[in-house]
């Protein structure tokens, strides 16, 4: 029998009354790629945080290489040869690759020796694992895929034998993700052990040897990857059968509801993020915007909804133009029937410190239904919030609860309920299911399609290609601030992936 790199035995961890991990037993075999899947809040991150020393388990035992280990801080974990690549990179943007790699592992005050040593070590690692990065490049000038490579190099430089990757493909194009998987396979062949945390079942099927499924703090199953299916894993994750792709009829597109014309947007540094784009969304259709994060989708959404001032451009709402270059007010656009579910629900779409009912009027707090002169009509607001809670199955069903205490999926439902129940003509949605669990994804997708079938114009921006393909009647691909292609919902992933990577665009330009 193969030797276990890590054994977790009877791990328990509670936060207050919530048991994030209960009696977790897990054995990760040396030299394999082991996937851990589960919905948000299933306890994957907590478990990995215990393994990496961010939290201590309330009870249970960790064994590394067969020896009982006490991991009280990330330093202990590193000393035991455990490295972690976080979902959000822990890099200093204005340092070079080399400086980032040695950060925290400097051995002398003047750095000269550390740097010289690190350079030769880095070159060896790069050769050995095919992880080419220029050691003197500045991090912020590198594409995301390479930044991630630096994170992996950091872990290897510290002698990691066991590498934990937390949602590593969230920010990558399909091509970059494929490249990452090749690197991981190579690392495996060199004898490293890899733990991959993800909610993308396709990735699990593609590269793991073994997969463990978590649900509500417990480890519900461990399977050999080649002996399981995506459907089985999805069912194990949610505890019931789920539709991975929502059923929908043909779109019956009507007249143009939303027309974006010659939109150009610059960010705060003056870099052009959206470059003269125009498109229409018609009544009764869902238009999906695909693209790798950071190609101008966020800025486009903010400009169309009036949050960010555009350099040029206008939107036509029901035939009436609204200039986006002036002080276009989100309130005015809202009054004209444009509802917006922002990408960042934590800071934009919701005030987490508010009670649920207070968030259910955010942006509509001028509506006379909720007011009594200058005063808030508390009863009306709470009744309205309770209605939405019932209609959208928001849990827990308590409109006085602080919004921060709802799960990601339920927070998203709060925003969706607020925006959809205003019966807008146009709905624009950024990342409809980011950080939302599988069960709620199904619900949200069904709602969006119901909006479409009521004859609304729906614009969806998402970095999840599966989501775009499943929802959209037309797909626009954004790359470097431009729309580089339009495809139907039957477009293959490979085709869209190439567009997202800007390949065809570059060829056309040459």
């Amino acid at each position, binding site marked *: 029998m193969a030797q276990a790199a890590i054994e977790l035995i009877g791990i328990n961890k509670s*936060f*207050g*009354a*919530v048991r*994030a991990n209960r009696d977790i037993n897990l054995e990760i075999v040396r030299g394999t790629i082991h996937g851990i899947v589960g919905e*948000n*809040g299933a*306890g*994957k*991150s*907590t478990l990995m*945080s215990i393994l990496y020393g*961010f939290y201590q388990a309330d009870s249970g035992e960790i064994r590394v290489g067969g020896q009982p280990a006490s991991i009280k801080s990330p330093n202990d974990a590193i000393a035991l040869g455990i490295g972690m690549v976080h*979902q959000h990179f822990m890099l200093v943007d204005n340092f070079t690759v080399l400086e980032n790699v040695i950060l925290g592992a400097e051995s002398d005050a003047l750095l000269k020796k550390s740097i010289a040593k690190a350079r030769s070590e880095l070159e060896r690692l790069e050769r050995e694992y095919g992880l080419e990065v220029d050691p003197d490049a500045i991090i912020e000038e590198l594409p995301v895929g390479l930044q991630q490579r630096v994170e992996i190099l950091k872990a290897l430089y510290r002698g990691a034998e066991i590498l934990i990757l*937390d*949602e590593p493909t969230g920010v990558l194009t399909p091509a970059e993700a494929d490249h990452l998987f090749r690197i991981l396979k190579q690392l495996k062949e060199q004898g490293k052990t890899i733990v991959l945390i993800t909610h993308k079942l396709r990735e699990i099927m593609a590269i793991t040897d073994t997969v463990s499924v978590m649900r509500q*703090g417990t480890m519900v199953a461990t399977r050999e990857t080649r002996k399981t299916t995506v459907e089985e894993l999805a069912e194990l994750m949610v505890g019931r059968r789920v539709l991975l792709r929502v059923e929908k009829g043909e779109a019956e597109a009507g007249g143009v509801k939303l027309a974006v014309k010659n939109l150009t947007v610059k960010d705060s540094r003056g870099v052009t993020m959206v470059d003269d784009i125009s498109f229409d969304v018609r009544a009764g259709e869902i238009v999906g915007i695909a693209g790798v994060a950071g190609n101008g989708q966020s800025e486009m959404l903010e400009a169309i*909804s*009036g*949050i960010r001032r555009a350099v040029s451009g206008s939107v036509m709402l029901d035939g009436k133009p609204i200039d986006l270059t002036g002080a276009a*007010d*989100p*309130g*005015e656009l*809202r009054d004209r029937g444009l509802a*917006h579910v*922002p990408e*960042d629900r*934590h*800071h*934009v*779409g*919701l*005030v*987490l*410190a*508010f009670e649920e009912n*207070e968030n259910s*009027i*955010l*942006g509509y*707090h*001028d509506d006379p239904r909720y*007011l009594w002169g*200058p*005063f*808030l009509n*508390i009863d009306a607001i709470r009744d309205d919030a309770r209605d939405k809670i019932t209609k959208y199955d928001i849990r*827990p069903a308590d409109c006085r609860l*602080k919004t921060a*205490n*709802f*799960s*990601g999926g339920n927070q998203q439902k709060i925003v969706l309920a607020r925006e959809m129940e205003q019966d807008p003509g146009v709905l624009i949605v950024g990342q409809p299911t*980011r*950080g939302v669990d599988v069960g709620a994804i199904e619900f949200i997708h069904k709602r969006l399609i119901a909006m479409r079938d009521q004859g609304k114009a729906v614009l969806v921006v998402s970095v999840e290609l599966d989501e775009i393909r499943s929802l959209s009647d037309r797909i626009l691909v954004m790359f470097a601030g431009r729309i580089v292609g339009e495809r139907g919902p039957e477009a293959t992933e490979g085709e869209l992936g190439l567009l997202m990577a800007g390949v065809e665009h570059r060829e056309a330009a040459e």
Partner: protein
Amino acid sequence: MSTPYAKLPAWADYGLIPVINLLVAFVVAGFVVLLVGENPFRAAAVLVEGAFGRGQGIAFTLFYATTFIFSGLSVAVAAHCGLFNIGGEGQGYIAGLGIGIVCLAFDSVLPWWLTFPIAIIAAAAMGALWALIPAYLQAKRGSHIVITTIMFNFIAASVMVRALVGYLKPPASMAPQTRTFLEGAQLPKLNWVIELFGAKIRSAPFNISFLLALAMAFLVWVLIWRTRLGYEMRTYGHSSKAARYAGISETRIIIIAMMISGALAGMMALNPTMGDQHNVALEFVSGAGFVGIAVALMGRLHPVGIVLAAILFGMLYQGGAELAFEMPAISRDMIVIIQGLVILFAGALEHMFRPYVQALFASLSPRSVGMEAVKGKGA
């Protein structure tokens, strides 16, 4: 990594934790008393006795508290909108100019109950205008409100010296203060209320502006939690991005919140001028604007908490004066030390004891600790 703070019951959150913070502040202050060679327990007894032992003390305690309620509310209103108004001192001081002009103009012709409303408006307007300039600079130019309001404290001080010495002082007088107001600008005392309970009061400046302070506390509660404006202020205070998304104008909300805050700071000047000294003198605010910061923090930015915290600080002021008299080794600076410790423990280290209290509650009864969804990672 999210910090897994379990929720506490409201009474522990708003009652127990401030009390623990306060006790720790007093324990540390006790060591300071010990250092200067006095008995901390006797010092505490003198302090409490001085503040609440006799009718006289109670009246003085409430007199000081009146000013602190206004300044605490001022800080709280701005804080709910995410602004740190550190300029209550200057806004209150400059309001004295408005009060002085109104009182000097009307005290011989109008009764107090007509002068008072005019003076309230003048004080509020002066305070609001003094806050308007920093607010405008913050909203339009991004000049940080903490810096500008501090600077405006100094400008207010200079303006008041010029006004008092140059214009408001009677020509023959050597003192930099207005003449004494006539009866038409003297607020009635409330000492009789305390005497109803059988206490004896020789003379104390506890006056009707205390009732105005309580009314303002109620109105601030209504404003913050029951009006659209308050909703917009709180939205902006928690997240400027969410406010922008909700169509709330940043410029408008900053300016309005700061002007209300300034108006409340301005009203604190009524108590020492019309209520006590019956003149406007140099430095009459004497730090009450800054005490407001401690009061607001201690009171968790809630009007009820602020009234209680203001009474606590009134007690420190009144009891502290008695203490300095009884124990010459302890000067009035001692009170400043205690005040500093309260700010340190109630404000800066607000959450220091929270995890322990939460652990205690969790171990006592897991059910009383609310459900905190376990958030692995946000997005």
